[in-house]
C-alpha cells in the first residue's frame, strides 16, 4: 500500500509499504477513505518532538471502512462498518478510560517504559505520533490497523460526507474540549490564540457553548477572515498590540477565559524578544518549547480566570510567569483530547446541522501529493488552512 512515511526532519515521502496485518484479536483493519494533515504533524515534520524513527507512518486524523476484524472484536465492529478513528487509542477498560480520561489510557501505549520515564506516567497510545506514544503506524495511508478497535472507533452513519465527519478524529473534539475546559459563562469573553484548524474549531465551540464574546488572535489574513466568519472579533498580532486590544475589548478587565491553540512553535518576531530567545534556546536544545502564548495568556487573563491549553507542548518551557499565575488565582487545564468523551454529542450536532466542520478544508488532494502538502501547509502557501488527503 501507499503511505506517507517520516524519513527525517522535513523529509516525508510517499512510500510503498507492506499492508498492515491483524496482530491481536482486538484489532481491525480499515480501508482509509479520508485522512488529514494536522498542525501537530508539523511538529514531527520539524522533528521538534523526540521519538520519531525513519520508517514511521504519519497521520492521526483518519476515517474509513472496516475490511477485516480480529476474533476478539465481539460484534462491536463488522466488515463494512464506516468508522472515524480517534487519534487516541483506548482500551475502554482501565481505570482512566472508565473515568472518561481516554487520552491517558493506561493500557494502550505499547512503549510505556519510554513515556513513564519522560512524563512520569504513561499516556494513551497515539497513531503516527512518535515512539513515546507507542510508535503506532499512522493513518496517512491506504490501510490502517486499529488496535483495541472494539473501543477505538466512532461509528458514523452513511449519508454524511467524509468531510463533515473526519474531524471527529481530532480537531473538532480538541477545539471542543478546549472550550469546555473553560467552563464558559454567558457573560464571558473567550480569547483564542491561533486560528489554525484547532483554533477555528475552538471559536465555533465557544460560540456553541454560549460565550458572550470570542476574540481570535493570529497574523494570517485568511485565517483571521475564517475566524471572523465564525463569529469572532479578530486581532492581528503583527499589526496590533494584543495586550492593548484585549484591554479595549474587555473594558480593561481582560478575557475571563483564554485558549492556547498554538503550542510549542509560537511565531518568532523581532518585536517579541522572548520568542527570539526561545528559538535560539530551542535550536541548541536548551528548551524544547516556545511558550510565548502561555506567557501572554497568563499576563492578560482576568484574575480568577481559566487558561485552557489545546496546543501541543513536548517538554520544557522556560520563563513562565508563575508569580502572575499564582497571584491572579488562575486555573490552567490542559491535555490531549479525550476524543470519545465528546464524540456522541458532536456527531449529533453535525447530524442536526448545528455545525458543519468541513468549513475548515481548503485543500483536498490525493495521498501521493501529501509530502508536497506538508510544505504548503507549513509555509502557509496558497492560503492553506487544512489539507485533506484521499488515498
Amino acid at each position, binding site marked *: *500500500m501507499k*503511505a506517507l*512515511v517520516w*524519513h527525517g*526532519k*522535513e*523529509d*516525508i*515521502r*510517499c*512510500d*510503498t*509499504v*507492506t*499492508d*498492515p*496485518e491483524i*496482530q491481536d484479536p482486538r484489532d481491525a483493519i480499515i480501508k482509509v477513505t479520508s485522512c488529514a494533515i494536522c498542525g501537530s504533524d508539523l511538529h514531527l515534520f520539524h522533528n521538534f518532538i523526540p521519538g520519531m*524513527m*525513519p*520508517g514511521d*507512518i504519519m497521520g492521526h486524523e483518519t476515517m474509513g471502512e472496516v475490511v477485516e476484524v480480529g476474533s476478539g472484536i465481539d460484534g462491536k465492529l463488522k466488515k463494512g462498518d464506516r468508522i472515524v478513528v480517534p487519534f487516541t487509542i483506548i482500551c475502554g477498560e482501565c481505570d482512566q478510560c472508565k473515568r472518561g480520561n481516554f487520552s491517558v489510557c493506561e493500557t494502550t501505549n*505499547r512503549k510505556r517504559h519510554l513515556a513513564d520515564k519522560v512524563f512520569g506516567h504513561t499516556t494513551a497510545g497515539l497513531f503516527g505520533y512518535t515512539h513515546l506514544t507507542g510508535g503506532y*503506524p499512522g493513518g496517512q*495511508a491506504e490501510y490502517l*490497523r486499529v488496535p483495541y478497535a472494539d473501543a477505538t472507533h466512532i461509528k458514523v452513519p452513511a449519508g454524511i460526507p467524509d468531510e463533515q465527519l473526519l474531524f471527529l478524529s481530532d480537531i473538532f473534539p480538541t477545539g471542543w474540549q478546549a472550550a469546555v475546559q473553560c467552563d464558559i459563562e*454567558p457573560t464571558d469573553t473567550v480569547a483564542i490564540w491561533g486560528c489554525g484548524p484547532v483554533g*477555528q474549531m475552538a471559536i*465555533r465551540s465557544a*460560540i*456553541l*457553548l*454560549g460565550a458572550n464574546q470570542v476574540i481570535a488572535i493570529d497574523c494570517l*489574513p*485568511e485565517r483571521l*477572515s*475564517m475566524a*471572523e*466568519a*465564525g*463569529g469572532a472579533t479578530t486581532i492581528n498580532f503583527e499589526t496590533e498590540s494584543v495586550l492593548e486590544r484585549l484591554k479595549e475589548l474587555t473594558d480593561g478587565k481582560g478575557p475571563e477565559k483564554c485558549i492556547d491553540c498554538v503550542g510549542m512553535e509560537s511565531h518568532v518576531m523581532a518585536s517579541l524578544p522572548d520568542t527570539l530567545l526561545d528559538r535560539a534556546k530551542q*535550536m*541548541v536544545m536548551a528548551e524544547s518549547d516556545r511558550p510565548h502564548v502561555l506567557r501572554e495568556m497568563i499576563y492578560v487573563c482576568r484574575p480568577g480566570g481559566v487558561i485552557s491549553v489545546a496546543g501541543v507542548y513536548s517538554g520544557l518551557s522556560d520563563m513562565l510567569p508563575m508569580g502572575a499565575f499564582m497571584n491572579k488565582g488562575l486555573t490552567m487545564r490542559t491535555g490531549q483530547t479525550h476524543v470519545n468523551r465528546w464524540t456522541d454529542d458532536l456527531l449529533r450536532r453535525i447530524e442536526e*446541522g*448545528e*455545525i*458543519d*466542520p468541513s*468549513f*475548515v478544508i*481548503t485543500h483536498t488532494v490525493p495521498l501521493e501529493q501529501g*509530502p*508536497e502538502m506538508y*510544505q504548503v501547509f507549513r*509555509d*502557509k*502557501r*496558497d*492560503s492553506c*488552512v487544512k489539507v485533506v488527503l484521499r488515498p
Partner: protein
Amino acid sequence: MFHFSNFVRTEGDPKIVEGGPSLKRPADQLARALGWFSIGLGLVEFLAPRRVTETLGMEGHETMVRAFGVREILAGIMSLSVDKNAGLWARVGGDGLDAAALLSGLTPDNPKKGNIALALLMVGGIAMLDYRAAQDTKPRRPPRDARRKLYPNRSGFPKGIENARTAAKQIAAHPKA
C-alpha cells in the same frame, strides 16, 4: 536507508518495500553539509586555537580564533535547523569576518603567508557555496503583501451564527435539570 529502518519496526507493522521520492533539494543537502562542516571547523578553532594561529603565523590571536569557533558552531547548528536559511546567511557574514582576519595577517614579515593565502582561497570557495546555498534555501513563505484568498463565508454554522448564538443562550437559560 529504509532497509535499516525496517529492522527496528515492531513485528507485524508495515515495512517499506519501495521508497518514494524525497522533496529534499540539492540545496538542502548542501546546507546540511555546510552545517556539519561549520560545527567541525568551529570545534577545531575552539579546542585548538593555538594550532590554528601557529599554522597561520598569527600567534597571539587565540582568543579571536576561539570566538570565531563559537560563531562557527552556532552558525552550524542554525544551518542544520529548520531555520537553515538564517544559519547560511550567518555563515556568509562569518566568511567575511574570516577573510578580514586573514587579510590582517597577510603581512610581508609573516613566514606563513603562503598558508594564509591558501586559507583565503578556501574561505573564498566556501563563501561561494554558502552564498549559493543561502540563495537556494530562501523560505518559500509568501511575502507579507502577497494577495491571499480570504474565507469570509465559511462560518461552519449551516443555520447561521445568530441561530447558533440563540440556541446557546436558550440552553444557558434553561439548563437541563
